[in-house]
């Protein structure tokens, strides 16, 4: 009140109250903005991923996203459930199945450029009857990734752990599929269920289901 009186000595009482309130509101808005900026600057972004697939192709997205986010300084948690659980096995030996996946390019990883660029679509009925077709497709994809400088899943997993991401295993899947905890990498951050992972995901800025 003293300030107001000094500024406008002739101000009637009601108007003085309004001015005081406006001044307070201005101060509050500025202070609020400032506090929000501080809060945003101090905020550590977080990412939660649920990894549910265990084929060579689908093993990439969770590890690429988790390792990159961890490198950007995010707090990262990945929950491996159902077939995704196999991505945490000590011996990681994943295969790809082109069967029923018409989007998968079937290209040769070797030879001259014109040869490599040819797509070789193989009908489903042939894929399912040629013995060892999936094994062949798997080795072709591994070879392609190798020549293109794409990391192997084992290497990416190592880098993901090194970058500080927490990898959780679904205990229900371990039991349901008849695994033992000893078959999985010792870096598993916890053997948990949906009720333990969801609260982590709830506090995350980004949640992804892969």
């Amino acid at each position, binding site marked *: 009140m003293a300030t107001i009186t000094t500024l406008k000595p002739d101000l009637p009482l009601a108007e003085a109250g309004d001015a005081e309130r406006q001044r307070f509101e201005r101060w509050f808005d500025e202070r609020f903005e400032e506090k929000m900026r501080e809060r945003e600057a101090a905020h550590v972004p977080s990412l939660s991923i649920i990894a549910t697939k265990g084929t060579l192709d689908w093993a990439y997205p969770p590890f690429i996203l988790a390792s990159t986010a961890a*490198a*950007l300084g995010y707090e990262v948690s990945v929950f491996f459930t159902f077939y995704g659980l196999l991505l945490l096995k000590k011996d990681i030996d994943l295969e790809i199945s082109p069967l029923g996946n018409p989007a998968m390019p079937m290209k040769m990883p070797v030879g001259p450029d014109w040869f490599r660029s040819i797509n070789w679509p193989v009908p489903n009925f042939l894929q399912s009857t040629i013995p060892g077709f999936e094994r062949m497709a798997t080795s072709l994809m591994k070879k392609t990734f190798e020549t293109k400088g794409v*990391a192997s899943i084992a290497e990416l997993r190592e*880098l993901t752990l090194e970058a500080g991401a927490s990898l959780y295993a679904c205990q229900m899947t371990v039991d349901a599929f008849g695994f033992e905890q000893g078959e999985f990498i010792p870096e598993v951050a916890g053997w948990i269920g949906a009720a333990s992972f969801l609260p982590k995901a709830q506090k995350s800025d980004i949640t992804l289901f892969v």
Partner: protein
Amino acid sequence: MTTETANAEMSVLDATGLNCPLPILRTKKAIGGLASGTVLKVLTTDPGSVEDIASFCRQTGHELLSSRTAGGTFEFEIRRG
């Protein structure tokens, strides 16, 4: 700018031939081992790394001093924040 000082102290990371996300992961590891203020030169061939390294620097508080192409190779100079 202290170009001379930066050049004298510059470490080089060769991430050529590597694809996403390896250039970023290697950069993060290499820059983590440097003292604040020192400059790391990174070489890549992954076209995606041009945007990704810029984004990495923005997110992690490192300064991207330069980003240029030299005959199919991308060169970055990053000052550790």
